[in-house]
């Protein structure tokens, strides 16, 4: 594949329906009203020279290079700021225009270093291109006068890109991209006239500034002023591979620009329907982990976890793993082994693992890491709407009038969608934030929440019930929608429940801590929309009432008729790239692909017929059940693909005990992760750059993952599962992941129309994709719910059993930060560490003062489950009585403190509520000391010299 350079139309597309026809250089072109002449020209196949225009930002009209002549008009207007009109006749080339443009270029070049041959942008520089287009042959002004050639002010502080002001032409594309695309407003033009320069606000350089390193400015820069350091070091790529990001659930499309098997840079792909050419610091820059020296590329085995690892052949490793699993089943029974996948795995990989477990292991002990994040979404939405999925596409937010963000921190965890959302908020949509912390979205440049309901952790259901109570009792119900679209008997019962005084905002205020008047006002705002959309994250699901809260939000959306069209809906923001997909693929122990229960005889038969073996009709063990069963002595073997349960799951000591109780733990991963410390077989996995497959993002969008590099360990992950299954005695025959997708489509009604060919053709496709919706379904439940009628369910508020006490008077809630991702296995092996070197404990100033804690002090964080130590960060983002930390770094041990409490329906851990105490500490915790010793002992790899003895 050649290097892909998308067409730059110069200005954004117009959404107008009315069409306008005009003539450009004698060619007739028809475009939507509101389109610029520049864009219309590109549509007509005519490229008008430009520098300050690019189609990711609004027209600016500063460079004066895109001048045109229009019949009947005086002068030479800029084509970027001139809109098309019916019958307009435009001329883009004439001696006069040529002279004007050449004059403009002369001025630009008179203050630009002529080092093109050694410039990093050589071959990909718009200034260079325009000099060629206008035929610049001389610079009459010379280069002796005042200029900006001094490159001493080059800013290399950012680990991923540099800023060289000497090459800046002050087109403001970077400033406008930061404002319009990213919405951070970190860049500005400082000074006036000749002294004007681009500056990053909030610090002395880019690194210390407000810049969030999304890369939008670098992408917008037409010269080498802002350029990736990898390009400076390696040069321009020679071919591109379009693939899907391996980080969050937004699922951004990227072009991996390559030199042979070397990634030069990752550029967000403009045709990506989830990201529309935007990116964040993780996807754009944090890909170096894929070739990090910590990668394990040879299979390894060991008899005991205290033994050093021994490198073996693939054949030996697979044979050993299969033999151990078979031995364990022979001794302890068929149900004594199981497997877990990660949402970092592809659809094909997760499908194959659950198939192997059901067909080769002969049980349903399959689970996935969505268990610990969005499993309540599955339960709640399936029971109310009929299927486990978000209702909208991301673009739907463009039509939202009211956006309600609940328990999510999109600017950190879903940055690209957050930028999209902020753009809509700047257009005038109104914002409600429900979160214990004052997240960035509450107040950031040109965005402010009208209501921030800073509830106490664990009281989501109280808030959602109080909002519903307000809406019903104040007569704001969308009666027509409820009557036509919902089960009336269920609604009537729910209505009687919700109007009870105990569900009123006033009655709930003592629990939530949120003034009743604010709850009522927010409820009215949401109810009156007219288009109101809910976006939510793990602050909803990771509670003992996670599923109840999802049901509560579904009730609220049905009550107000906010479903089935653009601008509305109930939208889970999925944490990892393939949370949706791994759930779709039957990774949970109770259901086959497509969310169909294992007890359904017809469904089970369809799988039995295709897979050729009888399948169990009983649900298998969830992750937490597997660990409990291991401690009980009935579960002895585990295959884990891509997941680090020891770091990411709660109650680390309990997890450690479970893993230690097993006789064969097989870890398939890029690195010796924390779980691998307790493993007996290590199988080298492949990064997203090294394999083919698909990811399904939070909007049900299935996108291609395309191989850019050969797998460092020799095999793609799906191939390893095939080898293991074959060795277990259940042969699998696939030549390519597309054949796995074909099988998924044959067996899963919502995927019936999905093929690699279709995804390639359409770019991506959103399920359901079948005969009814051959090109996919951007918005669900338009005329009726998947289950037919929507079902209101009762959502009694039940306070969590995790209570604060004198001994543990604070509530700990955990979450994520922009620059790091999940357990840090990926971002922790990149330069993203410059922003976040360790997990910190955020604490309110009053709580800190009460305990004699100063900013930066090491503190001991203790709960009934365990204790760890972290450095304190005093922050008014926290409310008194609540502390917060992240779990990105292994040594922090955030999950040493979290408990076994979980969601009533799905066992999703209650990460968001742990009663703790914080005290000053002089040294690291006992757990951390032990961790350092154990980790060293359990990760040794036998030297080659010892092997040869």
């Amino acid at each position, binding site marked *: 594949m050649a290097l892909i350079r998308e067409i730059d139309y110069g200005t954004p597309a117009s959404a107008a329906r009315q069409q306008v026809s005009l003539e450009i250089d004698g060619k007739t072109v028809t475009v939507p009203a509101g389109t610029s002449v520049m864009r219309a020209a590109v549509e007509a196949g005519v490229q008008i020279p430009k520098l300050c225009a690019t189609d990711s930002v609004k027209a600016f009209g500063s460079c004066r290079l895109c001048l045109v002549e229009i019949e009947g008009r005086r002068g030479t207007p800029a084509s970027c700021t001139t809109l098309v009109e019916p019958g307009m006749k435009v001329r883009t080339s004439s001696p006069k225009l040529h002279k004007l443009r050449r004059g403009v270029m002369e001025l630009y070049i008179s203050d630009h270093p002529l080092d093109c041959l050694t410039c990093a942008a050589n071959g990909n520089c718009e200034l260079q291109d325009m000099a060629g287009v206008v035929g610049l042959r001389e610079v009459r002004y010379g280069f002796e006068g005042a200029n900006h050639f001094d490159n001493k002010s080059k800013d290399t502080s950012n680990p991923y890109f540099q800023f060289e002001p000497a090459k800046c032409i002050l087109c403001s594309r970077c400033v406008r991209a930061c404002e319009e695309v990213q919405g951070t407003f970190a860049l500005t033009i400082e000074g006036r006239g000749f002294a004007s320069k681009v500056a990053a606000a909030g610090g002395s350089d880019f690194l210390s500034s407000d810049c969030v390193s999304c890369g939008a400015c670098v992408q917008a820069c037409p010269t080498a002023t802002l350029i990736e350091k990898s390009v400076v070091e390696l040069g321009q790529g020679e071919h591109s591979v379009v693939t899907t990001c391996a980080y969050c659930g937004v699922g951004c499309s990227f072009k991996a620009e390559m030199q042979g098997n070397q990634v030069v840079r990752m550029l967000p792909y403009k045709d990506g329907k989830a990201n529309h050419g935007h990116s964040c610091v993780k996807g754009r820059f944090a890909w170096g982990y894929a070739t990090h020296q910590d990668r394990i590329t040879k299979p390894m085995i060991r008899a005991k976890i205290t033994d050093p690892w021994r490198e073996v052949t693939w054949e030996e490793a697979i044979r050993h793993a299969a033999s151990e699993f078979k031995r364990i089943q022979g001794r302890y029974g068929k149900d004594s082994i199981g497997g877990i996948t990660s949402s970092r795995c592809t659809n094909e990989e997760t499908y194959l693992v659950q198939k192997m477990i059901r067909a080769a292991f002969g049980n*349903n002990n399959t689970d996935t890491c969505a268990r610990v994040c969005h499993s309540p979404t599955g339960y709640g939405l399936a029971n109310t709407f009929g299927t486990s999925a978000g209702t909208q596409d991301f673009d739907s937010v463009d039509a939202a009038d009211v956006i309600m963000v609940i328990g999510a921190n999109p600017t950190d965890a879903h940055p690209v969608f957050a930028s999209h959302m902020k753009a809509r908020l700047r257009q005038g949509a109104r914002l409600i934030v429900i979160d214990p912390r004052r997240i960035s979205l509450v107040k950031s440049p040109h965005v402010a929440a009208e209501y921030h309901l800073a509830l106490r952790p664990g009281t989501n259901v109280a808030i959602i019930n109080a909002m519903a109570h307000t809406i019903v009792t104040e007569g704001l119900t969308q009666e027509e929608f409820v009557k036509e679209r919902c089960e009336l008997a269920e609604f009537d019962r729910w209505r009687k429940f919700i109007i009870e005084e105990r569900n009123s905002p006033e009655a709930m205020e003592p629990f939530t801590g949120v003034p009743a008047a604010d709850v009522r006002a927010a409820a009215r705002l949401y109810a009156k929309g007219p288009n109101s959309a809910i976006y939510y994250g793990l602050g909803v699901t990771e509670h003992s009432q996670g599923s109840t809260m999802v049901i509560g939000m579904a009730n609220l959306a049905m009550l107000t008729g906010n479903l089935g069209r653009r601008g509305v809906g109930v939208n889970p923001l999925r944490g990892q790239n393939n949370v949706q997909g791994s759930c779709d693929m039957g990774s949970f*122990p109770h259901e086959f692909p497509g969310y169909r*229960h294992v*007890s359904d005889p017809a469904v089970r038969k369809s799988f039995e017929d295709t897979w050729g073996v009888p399948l169990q009709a009983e649900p298998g*063990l969830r992750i937490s059940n597997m660990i409990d069963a291991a401690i*009980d002595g009935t579960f002895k073997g585990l295959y884990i693909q891509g997941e680090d349960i020891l770091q990411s799951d709660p109650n680390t000591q309990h997890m450690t005990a479970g893993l230690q109780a097993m006789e064969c733990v097989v870890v398939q991963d890029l690195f010796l992760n924390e779980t691998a410390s307790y493993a007996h077989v290590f199988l080298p996995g492949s990064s997203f750059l090294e394999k083919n497959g698909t990811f399904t993002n939070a909007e049900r969008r299935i996108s291609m993952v395309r191989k850019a590099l050969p797998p460092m360990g020799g095999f793609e992950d799906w191939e390893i599962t095939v080898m293991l299954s074959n060795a277990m005695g259940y042969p699998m025959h696939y030549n390519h992941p597309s054949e796995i997708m074909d099988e998924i489509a044959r067996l899963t009604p919502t995927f019936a129309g999905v093929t690699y060919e279709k995804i390639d053709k359409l770019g991506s496709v959103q399920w359901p994709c079948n005969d009814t919706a051959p090109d996919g379904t951007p918005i669900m439940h338009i005329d009726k719910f998947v289950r037919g009628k929507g079902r209101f369910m009762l959502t009694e508020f*039940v306070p969590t059993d995790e209570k604060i006490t004198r001994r543990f008077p604070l509530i700990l809630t955990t979450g994520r930060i922009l620059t790091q991702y999940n357990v840090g296995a990926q971002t922790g092996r990149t330069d993203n560490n410059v922003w976040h070197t360790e997990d910190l404990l955020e604490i309110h100033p009053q709580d800190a003062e009460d305990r004699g804690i100063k900013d930066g002090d090491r503190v001991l964080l203790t709960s009934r489950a365990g204790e760890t130590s972290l450095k304190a960060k005093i922050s008014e983002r926290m409310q008194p009585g609540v502390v917060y930390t992240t779990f990105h770094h292994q040594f922090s041990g955030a999950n040493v403190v979290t408990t076994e*409490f*979980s969601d009533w329906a799905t066992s999703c851990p209650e990460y968001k509520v742990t009663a703790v105490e914080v005290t000053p500490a002089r040294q690291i915790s006992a757990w951390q000391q032990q961790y350092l010793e154990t980790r060293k002992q359990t990760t040794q790899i036998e030297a080659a010299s010892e092997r040869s003895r």
Partner: protein
Amino acid sequence: MKSETMVHNANQIALFWLSYPHDEAVAGVLSHLRRYWEPRMRVQICDYVAQGGGGLHTLALEAVRQLS
């Protein structure tokens, strides 16, 4: 699974269904145990109830009795 964990989990399920009419609530708990609890967990809770079922919510007790 520790008995106290099992009892806690079962009671949480019962508390969700508690708002529903009695028979529907028992059926809700029963269905949940059948659909989501692996057989050895169901055996464990049945054995626990057979030994008295101390600490279990009455709805959970009724459901488990029907389970066995």
